[in-house]
């Protein structure tokens, strides 16, 4: 059996170790008599770095040695390995979002006026993080509260070209009447037609 190329031994060791290894540790993998000189190990590490270019994995020297890591470019896919199962949004969040959509630009205080309860900061934060709403300015009243509006991402998510594709309140009222009249359950089909 032929001895594999040094860079592949280094690669295998770094992969199997699952964490950083110092060059000295890599050298320890060889019997003294067969140990390549230190600079060969550095060359191997750099050769590997070249090999990995464009592949989403990279070789990096950190405090405790060299390690192979999956680069940030892969995070959108690889990160999903550890993702948590989604929960459902609260009623409060949906109502707040609906008010921002229908009444934008709107401040937190104005949302609270309509809902009759305080809007928690975490709800606003969630919607900001999701890029569904953003601050478009500040109302020129004491405290200069932020005004929220929906975003392009919001429209994309709900598959709308523009906000006016949302059913109007009047239409919603009609729907209510219709529902009561025909004794429907939730008017799923009717509402979807509007979107």
């Amino acid at each position, binding site marked *: 059996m032929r001895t594999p190329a040094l860079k592949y031994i280094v690669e295998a060791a770094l992969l199997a170790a699952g964490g950083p290894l110092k060059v000295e540790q890599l050298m320890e993998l060889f019997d003294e008599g067969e140990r390549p000189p230190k600079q060969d190990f550095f060359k191997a590490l750099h050769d590997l770095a070249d090999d990995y270019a464009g592949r989403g994995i990279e070789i990096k020297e950190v405090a405790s040695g060299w390690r192979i890591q999956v680069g940030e470019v892969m995070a959108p896919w690889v990160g999903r390995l550890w993702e948590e199962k989604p929960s459902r949004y609260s009623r409060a969040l949906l109502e707040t979002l609906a008010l921002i959509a229908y009444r934008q630009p709107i401040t937190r205080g104005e949302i609270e006026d309509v809902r009759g309860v305080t809007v928690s900061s975490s709800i606003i934060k969630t919607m900001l993080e999701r890029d569904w709403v953003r601050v478009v300015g500040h109302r020129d009243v004491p405290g200069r509260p932020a005004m929220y509006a929906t975003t392009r991402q919001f429209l994309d998510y709900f598959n709308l070209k523009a906000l*006016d594709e949302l059913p109007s309140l009047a239409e919603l009222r009609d729907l*209510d009447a219709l529902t009561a009249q025909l004794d429907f359950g939730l008017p799923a089909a009717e509402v979807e037609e509007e979107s």
Partner: protein
Amino acid sequence: MSEAQRQAVPPDAATDPPTERQADVAHMNPNVEHPQQAEMPFAIVQGAPVTQIPQDLYIPPDALEVFLEAFEGPLDLLLYLIKRQNLDILDIPIADITRQYMHYIELMKDLRLELAGEYLLMAAVLAEIKSRMLLPRPPSEDGEEEDPRAELVRRLQEYERFKKAAVDIDDLPRVGRDLYPVGTELAERKVLKLQPQVDLQELILAFRDVMARADMFSSHQVEREPLSVRERMSQVLSRLTPGSFTPFVTLFDPEEGRQGAVVTFLAVLELLKETLIDLVQNEPFAPIHVKAAGQG
């Protein structure tokens, strides 16, 4: 035979009246490498000189105990005895094997190895087979005779195949010995939180509910602008750079046509009404500029 080999033979083995135990120990003596060349017997067993020991039985005396303990039970020991003599498992000379088996049992007893009951049970089984082999076999019910060894042969073979299977499994490439699972860190390991899915219908129903509730609490109905205007209000606001002036005309996109211009204009008027923006014109017919209200 070399001097060393002569000396290795216990002196009393050849001179004193041999006991069976001594015979057994001598029988196992590994220092006798070429017994077929021996001039004199190295052991006397049941009064008969023994000049041969199995070729494969070469064990340093210290290792004798280890060797005996290495047997995985009576079947393993029997298999060893059969293999050692190149016997066909289908045609075991029961008397021979029984005698050898008993030697090992005695040896184990003498070495005070913990002797599992199974070894003694097997001794009884062997003795029984031996006696049945000697006796005329009574025909069984269907008139056929059964070899008294059949059951033992079946068990030996069955055990042998799993003994082999154990070796095969041991030879399989194994994690941690022959292969190593790999692992790497993610450069930036963030736990991605999957976002909940929201249906448009949910959103609309939420709005309907919140408005229905608001209706119950408020005495006046807020007049609603068309949504397109409110949307445009947001767009206009977001285009304004805080603290600087934006030319009024740049808020209009000719590609949107007349309808678009009207919506933008209504949005600007609405923003003015809500004092969210200021319009500035330095002199008549000069360009109008828009800036977010209250920011200098």
